């Protein structure tokens, strides 16, 4: 069993439904203020104790490497963090394939400059509670030399659909010892050490942990990535390749591997089944044993890439080693199926993702290189993830079909990266240690 009272709630507790929230990015302008902020904030950070019960609202907090430095954390402790974390997400652009329009030089002003020190997340199931909990977070900053770099509300009403119009966040990894039985289709539980520091991972051993132990144990890493959805380009693509509403919706489902309702193509290959999509006991309860040739869910579709389950891969791969806990938080106006112009591509809407894992940096790099911006691992050459991939000129998407496959051209980058940071999400005890880190 995990020390749930030590682990931050956001690590295990899923988004509420409906969900409302705010991301706050902060810069520590002097170490004393930074430590004071942690002292004040810590009592308001929820632990994962009884995380399966709906408790609303809650706050969580992460700190970047630049933040740890700004706080005056001792050097031997700083050096115990993994290299990619110390360098930061922008500096790892080459390993992440964040090039071209996703290049850090095109990011929003706050990101990638070593200025984002702290990320605070407020989650709630109502707008009223969101405001209340955010107010509590803001009070803690009063009178401190801490600057707010960015504040972004999130939430996707009605229906919690993402900015391209899909139900999201369905398939999460099951974690051993987290206190809850896996949902049907969630797969065998994965060793907790893959997601939370201080516990044995799939190899049988715990991953290296930041030192001292009180700082590392029960903590984890968060890859924070902001995407802008190019809704106009996405809709134009569907219009170009689908003559009727039904054809367009089937194509939209083929790209993801699920209908917009969340119903998986493997279980609902021909028409959407919104009841299936809405049922957490059934909407993830499948594998690819009956879809060996990708006739239902194309090999290149988003969910088959992100969790290939029992798909035969071209390379020796243990799919359990490359999973992330995802907290997708959609921002901006809801998806508009009639948005077709290039101006619609720039309407600020998209998602902030928290990708959580005890080895988030290397997992995100692996996913970006192998499963998102390549197709070789699943036998489809150079094709990339149609939803979150960075597409090159002439990109294609193959839909296996009888008698012959359909090759869809004109795939564009539908979600553009606009910023990103790595955070360490410390345990409750580690937060107290950080408040007192000048030693």
């Amino acid at each position, binding site marked *: 069993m995990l020390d749930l009272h030590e682990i931050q709630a956001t690590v295990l507790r899923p988004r509420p439904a409906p969900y409302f929230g705010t991301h706050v990015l902060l810069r520590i302008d002097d170490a004393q203020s930074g430590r004071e902020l942690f002292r004040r904030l810590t009592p308001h950070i929820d632990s994962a104790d009884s995380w399966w019960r709906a408790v609303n609202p809650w706050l969580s907090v992460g700190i970047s490497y630049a933040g740890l430095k700004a706080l005056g954390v001792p050097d031997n402790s700083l050096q115990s963090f993994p290299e990619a974390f110390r360098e930061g997400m922008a500096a790892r652009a080459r390993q992440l394939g964040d090039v071209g329009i996703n290049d850090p030089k095109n990011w929003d002003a706050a990101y990638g400059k070593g200025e984002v020190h702290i990320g605070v997340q407020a989650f709630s199931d109502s707008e009223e509670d969101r405001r209340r909990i955010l107010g509590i977070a803001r009070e803690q900053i009063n009178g401190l030399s801490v600057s707010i770099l960015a504040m972004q509300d999130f939430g996707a009403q009605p229906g919690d659909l993402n900015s391209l119009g899909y139900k999201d966040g369905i398939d999460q990894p099951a974690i051993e010892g987290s206190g809850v039985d896996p949902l049907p289709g969630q797969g065998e539980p994965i060793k907790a050490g893959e997601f939370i520091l201080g516990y044995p991972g*799939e*190899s049988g*051993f715990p991953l*290296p942990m930041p030192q001292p132990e009180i700082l590392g144990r029960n903590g984890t890493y968060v890859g924070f990535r902001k995407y802008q959805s190019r809704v106009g380009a996405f809709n134009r693509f569907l219009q170009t390749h689908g003559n009727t509403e039904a054809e367009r919706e089937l194509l939209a489902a083929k790209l993801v591997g699920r209908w917009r309702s969340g119903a998986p193509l493997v279980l609902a290959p021909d028409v959407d089944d919104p009841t299936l999509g809405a049922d957490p006991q059934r909407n993830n309860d499948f594998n690819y044993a009956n879809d060996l040739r990708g006739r239902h869910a194309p090999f290149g579709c988003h969910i088959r890439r992100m969790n290939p389950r029992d798909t035969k*891969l*071209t*390379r*020796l*791969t*243990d799919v*359990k*080693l490359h999973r992330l806990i995802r907290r997708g938080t959609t921002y901006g106006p809801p998806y508009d199926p009639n948005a077709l112009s290039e101006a619609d591509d720039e309407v600020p809407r998209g998602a902030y993702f928290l990708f959580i894992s005890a080895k988030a940096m290397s997992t995100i790099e*692996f996913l970006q*290189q*192998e499963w998102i911006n390549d197709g*070789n*691992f699943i*036998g489809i*050459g150079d094709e990339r993830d149609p939803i979150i991939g960075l597409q090159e000129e002439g990109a294609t998407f193959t839909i296996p079909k009888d008698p012959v496959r359909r090759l869809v051209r004109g795939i564009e980058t539908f979600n553009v990266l606009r910023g990103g940071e790595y955070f360490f999400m410390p345990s409750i005890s580690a937060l107290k240690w950080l408040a007192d880190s000048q030693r």
Partner: protein
Amino acid sequence: MFMANQTQIGTAPAAELTGEQKIQQLRELFADATEVGKTALENVIKELSSQVSEPPPPIESAGRVGARLGKRSELTIIVPLVPGGAARLRTFLQLLGGNLSPGATKVGTLHDMRFVFFDNDTRLLFATSFDGDWDTYIDDFIALIPDYLDLMDSAWEGWPGIRDPGAKDYLIKHQITAEGWFVAEPDLTLAEIQRLKRIGKATDEFLDKVQ
């Protein structure tokens, strides 16, 4: 004593020289070569002069060590063996008739591998080429084929074990980057080659049917 280090040949980094200067440098180095060597050099220069002025894309670095061409990387390792290590490893290789096909095929990225014992079985040359970077999938190897790796590498002096955090550094320390390398189809991964073979077969079947 052999040192697993990069050896720098020549006086200046080759990349900064023009084709003409590189040829001049080569002539200087061959000045005290045998007559056979000198004649051969002049004949080859005649043939290669166009290629030297317009060289093919150079091989790139595959991360910290090793060379890369297109999607393919090479890895060459020379290691001292523990006493008795050669006999163990050789007997293991012979168990499979020297053909590593069943296990190596599973990896899905290995194009070739060779094990060469030399210096009276005190050292081993291990050379392979494969798709992508080897360390991307190291956790998968550790999870899925740790015993194969440790069985082969335990003959190597100082091998810490594949699960040891120092395993990667050990390999890098003993790896030597190839100075020259040729890959006929550098953009074809093993998965692509297999896909093309399937397409070829399907095309033949189709053509047979329409006749």
